[in-house]
């Protein structure tokens, strides 16, 4: 075991996959010589050369489009979008192209690509370096969307994404990159796409969360247990599309009280899908209305700190929502 943070775990997964399979390569803006603006790909160009750790021109549609072309000609590319905020120029290649190759060719052409995109609010990030855009993609059959939060799952999930025969969008919360270290196995392992993880068992309420707010939710859950004896079950979806419906529903049925949290704009977000699912499939088990927390419907987090803090559901807000639900 090695103690690694999220950023290092992602780096390690890339490095190990590139060592194990010579068709695996990375491409994107500044990923080669500079090692990525967050240093996720640091050292990969030294080890694998400028072709397999390839600096591309600044052109997102090209990055994803050429990754598609690489993949249909035998490669397993991992494309980096420097910030999730800059994914719209590549939207067409992801949604209309990568996601549909397999279906539209009746199974003849598949697209084994991984697209990594750092997302989420960071101080100073403001409108164009802080967005959570996952919902745009969680309505697109043919795509898989994953968003791990902790190093251990991130490493195993990235390996699964690279080995998956389908296009996988891999979202990394920037603020979680260095937030926490944990033991990460050094031997080869994968975490399956499509399976949620229960981080904390509990009988009283279910909280589903991912990204920075998952860290917050886990802290609050611990606090509520100590102070009020309220035991929250905390579930991380890991895969946002297609969702692990069973795990989410089992937990909702067990506790009868359901809260979903993310830092994406609340309307139409991935938590809305979970809420609809629980309301329909667990109605008879519910003891309280299904609740959600998310960002207000404004374009993104602002630059100035007080406005930024108002964007992401914080510990106080999450605590009051969990308490309200528990006491309902």
């Amino acid at each position, binding site marked *: 075991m090695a103690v690694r943070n999220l950023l290092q775990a992602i780096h390690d997964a890339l490095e190990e996959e590139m060592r194990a399979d010579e068709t695996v390569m990375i491409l994107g803006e500044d990923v080669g010589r500079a090692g990525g603006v967050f240093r996720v790909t640091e050292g990969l160009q030294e080890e694998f050369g400028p*072709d*397999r750790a390839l600096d591309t021109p600044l052109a997102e549609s090209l990055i*994803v*489009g*050429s990754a598609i072309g*690489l993949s249909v000609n035998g490669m397993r590319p991992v494309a980096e979008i420097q910030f999730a905020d800059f994914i719209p120029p590549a939207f*067409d290649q992801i949604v209309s192209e990568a996601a549909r190759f397999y279906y*539209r060719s*009746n199974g003849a*052409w598949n697209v084994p690509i991984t697209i990594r995109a750092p997302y989420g609010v960071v101080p100073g990030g403001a409108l164009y370096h802080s967005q959570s855009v996952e919902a745009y993609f969680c309505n697109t059959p043919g795509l898989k969307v994953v968003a791990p939060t902790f190093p251990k799952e991130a490493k195993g999930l990235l390996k699964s994404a690279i080995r998956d025969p389908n296009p996988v969008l891999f979202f990394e919360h920037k603020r979680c990159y260095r937030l926490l270290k944990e033991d990460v196995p050094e031997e080869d392992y994968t975490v399956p796409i499509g399976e949620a993880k229960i981080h904390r068992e509990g009988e009283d309420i279910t909280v589903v969360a991912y990204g920075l707010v998952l860290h917050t939710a886990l802290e609050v859950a611990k606090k509520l247990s100590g102070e009020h004896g309220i035991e929250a079950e905390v579930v991380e979806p890991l895969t946002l599309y297609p969702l692990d419906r069973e795990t989410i529903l089992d937990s909702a049925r067990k506790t009868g009280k359901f809260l979903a949290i993310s830092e994406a704009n609340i309307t139409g977000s991935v938590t809305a899908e979970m809420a609809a699912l629980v309301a329909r499939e667990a109605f008879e088990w519910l003891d309280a209305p299904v609740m959600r927390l998310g960002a207000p419907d404004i374009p993104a987090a602002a630059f100035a700190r007080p406005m930024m803090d108002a964007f992401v559901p914080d510990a106080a807000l999450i605590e009051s929502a969990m308490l309200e639900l528990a006491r309902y």
Partner: protein
Amino acid sequence: MYRAMLLARRTDERMWILNRQGRAAFVISCQGHEAAQVGAAYNLRPGYDYLYPYYRDFAMTTVLGQSARDHLLSLLGKKEDPNSAGRQMPGHFSSRELRIVTASAPVGVQYPQAVGSALAFRLRGEDGVVLVSGGEGSTSEGDWHEAMNFAGVRKLPVVFLVQNNAYAISVPEELQVAGSIAKRAEGYGFPGVAVDGNDVLAVYEVAKEAFGRARRGEGPTLIEAKTYRLTAHSSDDDDRRYREREEIEEWRQKDPILRFERYLFEVGLLDEEKKEEISAQIKAEIDEAVEYAEAAPFAGPEEALERVYAEA
């Protein structure tokens, strides 16, 4: 070459008849483009080089080996349609065996994909070439420029073929393209050639040069084949709203098939008897294809739910 051009033309004409009879829902045509397509595609090694076609590249896919039957099955959306088993509209070509990469409807998206496949050849040190094709309207899209730039930066083995037929639906070239398409290549650091797209041998020559360059590791080439589409944009389009009949008549005089036929007669490679024979063969092939395709079954509704995700 002559046979491929004629087969594409006659099949295409039959598809319009079926459409006007209400037996086919949609046709998009290659008529007028046969020389540009056949001349270029003759340089491909089927099953090895990659082709990223656009919706008019019927004659190209014919060169690679798709038959009249394949095209008719696709026209009618039957289960046996090799392109998509009836999932896509006609004109969205695909064949894994022939390395025709599944085509899309949004214009221009094929260019970045094509340079990616060219990069894969380069990374493995293979001499494969990628041919990617589109109309002049597609050169207005950002994807075209992004792909041209990357191909130039990395000297990739890709041949860009722009079939300039002077219209993007109704918008004429003057309102679509600033300056010259062929000359743009220079700005991306590689050669661009304009060629008479109605002269199959001229297109073949410049394409041969371009494929040679690509195979020798000398990088991409842009070919602008100047041609004309003899039909409306598609069976849903009424081109009387935006172009004069006289203009089409003028271009009919330059029909690439008649032109090649005259040449073949002149050099003694074709005579009336041989011509009749080829025509009769083609007609029989198309008749058989129509009959077969009309009788062929559709995929069942349950199949619409399948093959969304590839299994490991």
